[in-house]
């Protein structure tokens, strides 16, 4: 398991660039903090090599900030290496623990859907997982996410990863689980932002809310 030895934070216009120092190398992240938040969304693989945030993460993170939820987008050391990317995600979860974040929702798109699914069972801080247009490779352990909730979203016009991938993951998963197929949406899920973005905002804030008895 990866270990975190320290981190460095550099403020920018888009948020704080965070450099995680680990025993496997440095991992770049972008933190969009909500004041005093102890809940956060971890956007696995949503930060590009040029420090650009994916459009879905950018939009939803902005809304979540208004809801008092922080976001951290992770840039993998070795994109498309599943095991390394899972470890990078776990390092980001260790960072959250160091800065006092108690409850984390993991979100991943495409390859990172499987990363989020594979990483979630390895951290008690993760309270919910959303996998968007996920691949099946790496997602076989999805049943281990339960009893934490799982949201699967896929476009019916996805030609890179057929929507049956998310259905197959759904069939492997245990409840609580939810499958949303967006008619006409392709792999980028950019066709119906008026549907997807509020769905993610609502689902994530609801699942990040502490149970009533805490």
């Amino acid at each position, binding site marked *: 398991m990866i270990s975190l030895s320290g981190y460095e934070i550099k403020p920018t216009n888009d948020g704080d660039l965070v450099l995680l120092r680990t025993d496997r190398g440095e991992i770049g992240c972008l933190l969009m903090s909500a004041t005093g938040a102890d809940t956060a969304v971890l956007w696995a693989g949503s930060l590009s090599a040029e420090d650009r945030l994916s459009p879905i993460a950018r939009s939803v993170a902005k809304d979540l900030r208004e809801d008092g939820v922080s976001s951290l987008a992770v840039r993998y050391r070795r994109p498309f290496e599943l095991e390394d990317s899972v470890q990078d995600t776990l390092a980001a979860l260790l960072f959250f623990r160091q800065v006092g974040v108690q409850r984390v929702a993991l979100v991943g798109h495409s390859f990172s859907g499987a990363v989020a699914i594979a990483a979630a069972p390895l951290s008690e801080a993760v309270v919910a997982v959303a996998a968007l247009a996920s691949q099946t490779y790496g997602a076989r352990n999805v049943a281990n996410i339960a009893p934490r909730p799982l949201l699967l979203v896929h476009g*019916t016009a996805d030609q890179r990863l*057929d*929507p*049956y991938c998310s*259905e*197959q993951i*759904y*069939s492997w998963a245990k409840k609580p689980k*939810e*499958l949303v*197929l967006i*008619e006409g949406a392709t792999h980028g899920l950019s066709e119906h932002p008026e549907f997807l973005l509020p769905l993610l905002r609502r689902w994530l804030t609801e699942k990040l809310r502490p149970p009533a008895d805490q």
Partner: protein
Amino acid sequence: MPTYLSCPLPPQQRMGFMDALEEAGIAYSREPDGYVVYLKDGQQEAWRDIQQRFRARIAEEDPPLIFGM
């Protein structure tokens, strides 16, 4: 007991269909061609109900290729 390959349903019905199978204790796997449904003794009636409720069309009975089990 029989195995069926059921054709994919309209997208908005797929989660409900899989939930109904799970609630009835019927084993299935989602494959590219549809849902492979594996019936055990005593599940025929529950399967018939689900099939009718979702208007699930059977593409093949006892399909030769069974994946994922």
